[in-house]
């Protein structure tokens, strides 16, 4: 087992006692699905709430002075950081899969029709939003810790509102490129994946630099 995977497992064992709370944040957006009758709204809220729980690993580490444990383990700091990002991405994907499985069922029960395209669109936007929130949050937590860095917890909320605002302002009909991407499920998904990968790469590099210079 390589060190990155060991770090992922360690992070999982950190949040294991809090799994019920995290699961609750995945269930909560169901209310928004019922009220708004929109898959996109439900997925957006689900990803926003899940992004807000990413501070758990940092809070638990800080509460138990576990930076000392991380400091004595035979593992590179870069592996620790990549492990934490992978763990958080797994959390995001779990929330996304859960929401994509449950929300359409609820909407169908409520009499709404969900097309294949709605489904892919919601998935792509969900991935993008989660990435957008966490790429700013995680370096913030590494730099300032879970208490001072709590301000970064609100980035998902601000980001969500800004995204909603921008979506209505973008002149989609005037941009042929944007229209082509939006109308093609494959291109939309591919663009989201490339953009997300680029954002995470930069964010991981910044976090590694912060942790390497941090004194425990």
């Amino acid at each position, binding site marked *: 087992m390589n060190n990155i995977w060991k770090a992922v497992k360690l992070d999982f064992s950190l949040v294991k*006692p809090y799994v019920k709370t995290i699961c609750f944040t995945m269930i909560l957006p169901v209310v928004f699905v019922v009220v708004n009758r929109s898959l996109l709204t439900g997925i957006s809220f689900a990803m926003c709430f899940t992004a807000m729980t990413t501070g758990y690993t940092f809070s638990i580490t800080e509460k*138990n002075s576990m930076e*000392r444990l991380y400091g*004595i383990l*035979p*593992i590179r700091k870069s592996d620790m950081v990549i492990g934490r990002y992978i763990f958080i991405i797994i959390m995001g994907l779990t929330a996304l899969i859960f929401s994509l499985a449950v929300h359409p069922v609820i909407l169908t029960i409520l009499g709404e029709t969900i097309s294949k395209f709605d489904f892919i669109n919601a998935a792509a936007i969900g991935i993008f939003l989660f990435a957008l929130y966490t790429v700013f949050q995680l370096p913030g937590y590494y730099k300032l810790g879970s208490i001072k860095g709590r301000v970064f917890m609100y980035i998902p909320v601000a980001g969500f509102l800004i995204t909603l605002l921008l979506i209505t302002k973008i002149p989609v009909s005037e941009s042929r490129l944007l229209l082509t991407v939006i109308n093609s499920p494959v291109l939309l998904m591919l663009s989201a994946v490339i953009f997300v990968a680029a954002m995470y790469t930069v964010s991981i590099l910044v976090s590694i630099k912060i942790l390497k210079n941090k004194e425990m």
Partner: protein
Amino acid sequence: MNNYLEVRNLSKSFEGFRLHDITFTLPKGYIMGLIGPNGSGKTTTIKLILNMLKRTGGEVKVLGFDNIADEQEAKRNSGVVFDSSYFSDEWKISQVEKSVSAFYENWDTQKFSEILEKFHIQPSKKVKELSKGMQMKLMLACAFSYDAKLLILDEPTSGLDPVSRDELLHILSEYIEDGGHSVLFSTHITEDLERAADYITYISYGELFFSGRKDEFVDSFRIVKGGCEELSAELRKKMTGIRIFSTGFEALVKTGDLKQFAHLNVEPASIDDIVVFTGRKGGQYE
């Protein structure tokens, strides 16, 4: 490899504090006490050895590996015990093993169970349910389970009752018995060192005061006692530290200077005496 730990010219500057030019070596098979008053730089030295702080100068070799360039190799066979637990309070002991064992290739689950039994730690308990002494034993159990060659303990006895302190010292003595393990043990409870340590490294106000064999350290000082009329200005200059009472004085002197104090009462100095007399800036209090 004869030395399990080599620290050379180690330096670190903070605002208002400077650890300067610390050099010592810990040979294989021995216990070294790292002593000094609170704030003298003991924990800073340990954190620099573990690369948890960035040094401003010097070099550290742990089990022959550079503590920065070969950090993983250096940590693979080292165990660390701090003054409080570094595991999640919510973890059960079995979870501690699951979480930590993956990082050590030579982790021995059977040995871990045996040590837990020996230390009377129930695997079903949560870390937060353990006393401070038990938490310290849990950290030791982990280090013993992957056969850490070098054990570094930062103030492990602070806050422990005398029974737990005695148990810890016994465990450490057993640990080095085979000659293949070493311990660096920081403390300000010098009584513990009188019993357990073979070597002493004494840091005072960020500077290295002494590093060498404990007997040599204790033997290099004496306590002299006398009446006020026997205390001349010339003698005072030769004293490392002095305490003056209304009826007389007691002072710490170097054994090499003892001839000049032959007319006074001379007693052996304890580690505590040496730390108390040398730990005060100016070395005098009245």
